[in-house]
């Protein structure tokens, strides 16, 4: 079974790679500037949050959960950095670390309720998304700066790190993304802990009976996703040079799309981070390419949403030959 699963997933990932190449070719054809290496590599700056968060939301979906709160943690982390630095005089790097800790704590809180009370993950993270975005808004009240302006004026070193390019070419955000792919790959696919995550998604009771502290494992997945959302918030703050409470508000759709398009089942127990990383790139390049071809950013949800639905429909068709049979039967019945 694992052999078969591995082969199937690899095939899906190959398909994503082809899709990515096709996108780049099409957008390059529409706008030759798109193909210049610095532009192509730099495009990741625009969708770094999607990439980073979806890597770790994969863990949550593999345990059979759902995470719709990550977007609100992005804003919370951003405003925490701004607030601590500007109004409390904390060193900006220490503030970033604290923001990461707060993101992890937010994930832990939701994860605790999901794992230990048995409430559906969807409801808990829905509550979490209200709570954390509300806290972010409340935090702006503590600051002297008007909330709609955002807190800005960060030290140079802080805003420079996200704009740094290795060899004048590879942006630091790409490096962070690559590093996090490696980290999440090792965590999920190469460690005992990763196997536990999968087992909890396949069958939580079985995991419990084999001596795994399944609740702790499930909770830890949310901690990872919370911390990654906070990291995305810090990087976004650094890149844009302002801290605002509403960063990440529109991220839920692309994040879930990336994870599901990457081949992770939302029923748990199946998936992988390589697929997620590729899918995040597919979505990000699509958004970037479309906006470079002169399409207003407000329309970008149409292709992303359509892609999500199409991808999942294709996968269910591929997985399950009975469905095509059922469709045929349904139409036959209608005619009769």
């Amino acid at each position, binding site marked *: 079974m694992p052999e078969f699963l591995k082969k199937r997933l690899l095939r899906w990932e190959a398909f994503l790679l082809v899709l990515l190449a096709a996108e780049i070719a099409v957008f390059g054809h529409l706008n030759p500037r798109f193909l210049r290496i610095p532009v192509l590599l730099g495009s990741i700056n625009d969708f770094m949050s999607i990439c980073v968060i979806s890597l770790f939301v994969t863990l949550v979906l593999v345990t059979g959960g759902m995470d719709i709160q990550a977007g609100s943690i992005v804003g919370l982390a951003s405003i925490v950095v701004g607030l601590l630095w500007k109004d409390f005089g904390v060193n900006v790097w220490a503030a970033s670390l604290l923001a990461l800790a707060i993101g992890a704590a937010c994930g832990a809180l939701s994860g605790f309720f999901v794992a230990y009370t048995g409430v559906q993950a969807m409801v808990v993270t829905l*509550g979490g998304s209200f709570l954390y975005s509300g806290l972010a808004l409340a935090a702006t009240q503590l600051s002297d700066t008007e909330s709609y302006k955002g807190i800005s004026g960060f030290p140079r070193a802080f805003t420079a790190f996200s704009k740094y390019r290795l060899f004048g070419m590879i942006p630091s955000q790409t490096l962070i993304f690559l590093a996090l792919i490696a980290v999440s790959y090792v965590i999920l696919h190469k460690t005992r802990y990763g196997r536990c995550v999968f087992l909890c998604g396949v069958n939580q009771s079985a995991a419990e009976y084999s001596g795994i502290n399944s609740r702790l494992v499930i909770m830890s997945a949310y901690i990872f996703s919370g911390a990654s959302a906070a990291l995305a918030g810090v990087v976004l703050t650094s890149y844009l040079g302002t801290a605002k409470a509403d960063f990440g508000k529109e991220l839920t759709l692309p994040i879930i799309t990336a994870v599901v398009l990457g081949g992770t089942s939302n029923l748990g127990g199946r998936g992988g981070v390589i697929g997620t990383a590729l899918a995040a790139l597919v979505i990000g390049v699509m958004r970037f390419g479309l906006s470079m071809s002169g399409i207003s950013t407000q329309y970008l949800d*149409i292709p992303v949403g359509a892609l999500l639905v199409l991808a*999942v429909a294709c996968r269910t068709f591929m997985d399950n030959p009975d469905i095509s049979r059922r469709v045929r039967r349904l139409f036959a019945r209608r005619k009769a």
Partner: protein
Amino acid sequence: MKILKTVAQAREFTSFLFVVALFLIVGAINPDFLSLQNILLSLNGSVVFTMLAVGIAFVIITGEIDVSIGATLGLAATVSAVLIRDGSSWIAAVLAALAVGAAIGLANGIGVMILRIPSIIMTLGINGVVRGLCYVYTGGKWVENLPFDYKALSQATLTGEPGSVTWFYLFAAAIAIGIYLLQTRSRRGRYFAAVGDNEGGANLIGIPVVRTKMTAFLLCSLFAAAAGLMYVSRIGFVTPTAGNGYEMKAIAACVLGGVSLSGGIGSMIGAALGAVIMASIGRILVFMHFSSNYDNTITGILLITIVVGDALLQKRASERARRKRLSARIAAKPGGGA
């Protein structure tokens, strides 16, 4: 007496008590809150959420979820507002809005039930697409300058004086109660809960599962479209982001009203009560002299507390029932019966 007992045991009763307690507590801090005027304002203000919550309750009771209603509300509102602004008859606008709702509901139903896409993913995707269509349809501009008499519709009240119950709220409440009765008394109405409680079982005893769930998605989107019509009349203009995030508030309203997201449990009355709570939180904060910026924080805390509390209570209840069964079996043994 028996009726009283059933009422007290119903889940909606808990949410009703919660609403009363909430109003009383806030009233104790600020007596102005308990004035009839304010209570009516709270009810009238919740009409859009009531329609959304009643609609989505169908889907949630069948054990699915629909996160596309915010965008559905937005598109229905946009389409109808453009028609009304350009001088079409109201009937055409209402029909157009409902057609938008029906199309989206049908798409969701087909995706979930025939293509077998998990409902959260299908409706999340549709939400993105429909929200994008709102921008395409208006070119990102606001729809303004609606005729005064359409806006006046939402102000029309039962007694004709301002400050009384609006016809809109009466309509929404009547629908909620009507559906509640249909759902508890009629055979087809019970299908929704049966499918949500145990899909396989419902299938085995001959309930048309696919049709029931598709009906639920259709009704949900139709209610969202109707909510869109009310939204236009109440607000008086439509932005391309109209209804953004309302889907989450409607789900929260259902949860607050005792509708279980795992399906099979809950009713329209509960959902409507939950909508009143959701819509009143902002108002309550103002009356308690807090900044309304804490709106989301309070919503989140309420939601998590209620859901977790409910889960713990249920866990205890099922544990107690199990123990009772066990001890009954032991007690029955010496008699030699069972």
